[in-house]
């Protein structure tokens, strides 16, 4: 049985804006799920409804099989880590972490033990008597985490918890949060707009757009099998190219753009011959033709417009025959790879495996 079940959740805001539109999903116990979407897509509102800070206009929330839709926040066995950490400024770290237990009347000695355990979990025992004002951003984050896990919630909600941290610290905290999740075995729901964060941390990602779930799956599934150009573009980078559908041949979709034929193995449904379609191709799946030896691959060409050195890769911005812009990422495995990379203005032959070309209907449907 799922620990958390969301059924047809809908939330309207003043002015007729539908923030969350008929959303349903379930969470297995111990899962790490990310709600991923651009800002204003309704993901935070979903989280706030699960926590109990907003009440849905329609739909139900079941926690451990019990309907908690109308329960106030303090009656729900979920805890939240707020974006701004929301530490009580008039209490020190120990008082912050033990706050809920203290008011629930838990014996002092037990509170002390559990606060220590909780602080040990986030590696912050040495700051037990510091006030929030004396802590750095990363340390405040840890206090907020320790405080949220001390009551052993059924579900831990994390509202963009890492967005206020700088890049290095954020990456370190991503890994640490993942480890914490493994240690605790609690179900985590993370809300973020950072797709990299979502891919790194989650067991499952739910992509949200304009109050609806667009696609849900493991990070690899979303990356490899996007069901819409939106997901293909939002998760990682994709080249989206308008093309024409020609027909089916040997289990391949045959498409055409700029006078070239491109064969694609993937594409969920069949298309009208002569109809407009969208091709999605990931930059790192395209190779320079001279390096590709498979004859079954698609070959096409483009002119280098700009080269962007990114350390681990070299990104080439190209213009294809019909003027479409296209990017490819070249791996830099030896110093020669960079030196021998094509210069701006040269025309390069490109190759891509049909298995790495995805066909979408031009209206965005798969």
């Amino acid at each position, binding site marked *: 049985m799922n620990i958390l079940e969301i059924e047809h959740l809908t939330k309207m805001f003043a002015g007729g804006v539908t923030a969350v539109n008929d959303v349903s999903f379930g969470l297995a116990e111990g899962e790490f799920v990310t709600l991923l979407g651009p800002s204003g897509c309704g993901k935070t509102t979903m989280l706030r409804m699960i926590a109990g*800070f907003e009440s849905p206009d329609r739909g139900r929330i079941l926690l451990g099989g019990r309907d908690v839709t109308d329960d106030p926040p303090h009656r729900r066995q979920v*805890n939240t880590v707020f974006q701004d950490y929301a530490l009580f400024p008039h209490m020190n770290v120990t008082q912050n972490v033990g706050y*809920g237990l203290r008011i629930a009347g838990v014996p002092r000695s037990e509170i002390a033990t559990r606060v220590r355990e909780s602080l040990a979990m986030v590696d912050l025992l040495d700051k037990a008597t510091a006030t929030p004002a004396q802590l750095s951003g990363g340390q405040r984050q840890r206090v907020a985490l320790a405080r949220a896990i001390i009551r052993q919630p059924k579900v831990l909600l994390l509202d963009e918890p890492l967005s206020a941290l700088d890049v290095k610290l954020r990456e370190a905290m991503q890994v640490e949060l993942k480890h914490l999740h493994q240690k605790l075995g609690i179900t985590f729901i993370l809300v973020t707009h950072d797709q990299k964060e979502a891919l790194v941390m989650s067991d499952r990602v739910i992509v949200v757009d304009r109050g609806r779930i667009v696609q849900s799956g493991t990070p690899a599934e979303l990356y490899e099998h996007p069901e819409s150009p939106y997901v293909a573009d939002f998760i990682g980078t994709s080249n989206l190219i308008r093309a024409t559908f020609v027909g089916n041949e040997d289990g391949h979709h045959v498409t055409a753009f700029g006078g070239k034929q491109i064969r694609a193995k993937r594409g969920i449904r069949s298309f009208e011959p002569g109809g407009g379609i969208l091709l999605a191709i990931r930059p790192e799946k395209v190779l320079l033709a001279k390096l590709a030896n498979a004859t079954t691959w698609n070959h096409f060409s483009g002119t280098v417009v700009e080269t962007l050195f990114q350390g681990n890769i070299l990104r080439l911005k190209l213009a294809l025959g019909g003027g479409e812009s296209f990017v490819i990422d070249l791996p830099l495995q030896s110093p020669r790879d960079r030196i021998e990379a094509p210069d701006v203005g040269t025309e390069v032959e490109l190759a891509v495996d049909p298995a790495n070309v995805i066909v979408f209907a031009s209206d965005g449907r798969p």
Partner: protein
Amino acid sequence: MRLATRRRFAWLAVLSPPLIWTLLFMIVPYTIMFAYSFFRKEGFSFIPDLQFGNYAALLLDPQYSQVLLRTLKIATMVSLAALILAYPLAYFLAFKVRWARLRLFLYMAVIVPLWVSYLLRAYTWKTILGSEGVLNSFLVWSGILSEPTHLFLYNQFAMVLTLTYIFIPFMVMPIYTALEKIPRSLIEVSGDLGVGPSHTFFRVTLPLSVPGILAGFTFTFCLAFGDFIAPALVGGPTGTMVANVVQSQFGVSFNWPLGGAISIVMLAIVLTIISISDRFERAGRLDLG
């Protein structure tokens, strides 16, 4: 001219009007008053001297010490009454009124009386509480009283009522500001941690609004402490406050040295209150960021 020198001149140019103002209208008068408080009164003239007779009279003559104590008592009651009334109002405005324009409107409704003549506001209560007043007329009309009573006006109750009414905006404003500044996520996280609304109020909201309470209390106390119009209008014989005594010493009683001594004591009391509240405020100042 060097930049540093020019900067210094600019500073002086900006600061000198307020400095001159403070010097002329605050420091000089208080110095004169302070000097007078050590003078002697002989007949109708004041003899320069350095003696503490005026201060002694103030402490030993019950006529004056009683008024001083009464003033302290009334100022405290006014501040408490204002706090009890203002806090729920400020809380309601800050947390319960969700519609921003309604909040602004209600807030303005609290502030607007400050723009009405002070005398008029004090006088209003005279027309309400007087024997010919609104309250009496209503009670007689409804049959609760057979004839108008004099109990409402010219006593300490009337004074506390009037002063509370007049100074309550000074309590509402700082408390509202303090409550407004509390991040809503702190209230939410308290609920999230399993704490119900009433505990949340006493453990989070109230402690974090203490600076506002202190500021409001200080304002109200000091303003009520130095008031002399409300006592004159609604106070009656038992409602004389220390400021009325000062007024009469500089007027009909014609005893500037004693008036000066009382003024200096009042100033000392007010400054003490301000510094105490400032110390508390400093101790409790928190980083809400």
